[in-house]
């Protein structure tokens, strides 16, 4: 089915490839963009063109940015000696949203996976070891998922870092969570990580 011109069809087809969108919702989005031409469409096109030309991975931590070194790595006040190791950029952004962690990050780009044959060489683990040697790191916080692959990766990294304080995020009852709704694995983890009051 045609939607006017070939360019519009192409735009809809490309939008439909985005996560969460299908052909129908892509058509709605494109119509919305056309209606808000000056307010949304043109600024969006402009920003996308600029980002497309400049976006890259930070050479230091693997974060996405538009310069060789990202803002977090280049900020002197974030040189706290702590480095949080995360699986991918979405996790880094989640940590930044919480505005609690004041140190720097290292994005691994995935986790070790026995079944997908993803080994240490496929991740940015050698770069992490280099950074620990050169950036006066005193604590490595393993902020990896509470999954089998995430924790396998955490144990592997901990083994590679003798002499450094290595910690990991706690696992257990989420804020606002009720025990009745938790799975038995989470309750086991929470009980194992209980703390004195």
């Amino acid at each position, binding site marked *: 089915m045609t939607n006017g011109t070939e360019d519009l069809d192409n735009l809809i087809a490309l939008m439909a490839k985005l996560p969460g969108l299908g052909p129908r919702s892509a058509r709605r989005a494109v119509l919305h963009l056309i209606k808000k031409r000056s307010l949304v469409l043109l600024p969006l096109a402009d920003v996308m063109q600029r980002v497309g030309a400049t976006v890259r991975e930070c050479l230091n931590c693997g974060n996405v940015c538009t310069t060789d070194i990202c803002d977090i790595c280049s900020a002197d006040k974030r040189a706290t000696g702590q480095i949080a190791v995360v699986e991918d950029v979405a996790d880094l952004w989640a940590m930044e949203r919480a505005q609690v962690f004041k140190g720097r990050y290292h994005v691994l780009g995935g986790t070790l996976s026995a079944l997908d044959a993803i080994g240490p060489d496929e991740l940015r683990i050698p770069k992490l070891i280099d950074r620990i040697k050169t950036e006066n790191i005193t604590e490595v916080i393993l902020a990896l998922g509470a999954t*089998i692959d995430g924790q*396998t990766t955490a144990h592997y990294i901990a083994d590679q870092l003798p002499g450094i304080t290595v910690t990991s995020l706690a696992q257990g009852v989420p804020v606002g969570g009720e025990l009745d709704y938790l799975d038995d694995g989470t309750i086991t983890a929470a009980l194992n990580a209980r703390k004195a009051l």
Partner: protein
Amino acid sequence: MIEWRSEAALLSTRPFGENSVIIEVFSASHGRHAGVVRGGTSRKVAPILQPGAQLSVAWKARLDSHLGSFTVEPIRSRAAVAMGDRLALAGLNAVCSLLAMVLPEREAHAPLYDRTIALLDLLGQSDVWPLAYLRWEQALLEEMGFGLDLSACAVRGVNEELIYVSPKSGRAVSREAAGEWADRMLALPEVLAGKGDASNDEILRALGTTGYFIEHRLIKGLGDRPMPGARARLLDAIARVK
């Protein structure tokens, strides 16, 4: 519509589309079996789908040759036990990756399923787990048709001083019979034959022998695929438990 329901251990998951995953399970009656779980990436379902989890699965497809879809309900999660223990985690990965690699698809192996569940139930008991894992690898070889015969010397028929395993036949060889071929033989620690010292060092020696047959008999038959790295990490974890 073809349907069946069974208990199964989850071996692997991989993404399929935006919200679904393809899982591989190992059940007593249907062996290694794949299928789609719709909504498998959701917050509700994703925590259930961790390797090693014991599930109640219902599979259905229009034709038997189709991939089909699973609905899953948790019976027992093993992730929490494994995640806090380096050896358990390495063990769980090794078991799941070996099964996912060497089991033929849709072929029942009920005895091996029972052995696997028994092994997974021992996760977290680091004093007995390495020996249980060794016995499981022996059972895996047996079930796949490459069992080791350690009852008597393959050359002379004697059952004294059996200290080697022939890499060709998988049968025991005595010290005397090995002669000048001794350096080409694999080690036969007593623990492999079900007796003697079951220290971790001896278990590692025995795993070296079973590993040879897994690599050169089971995996070699599947094409040029390497031994899963998870097994090497398990051996490393056992070596650290002193």
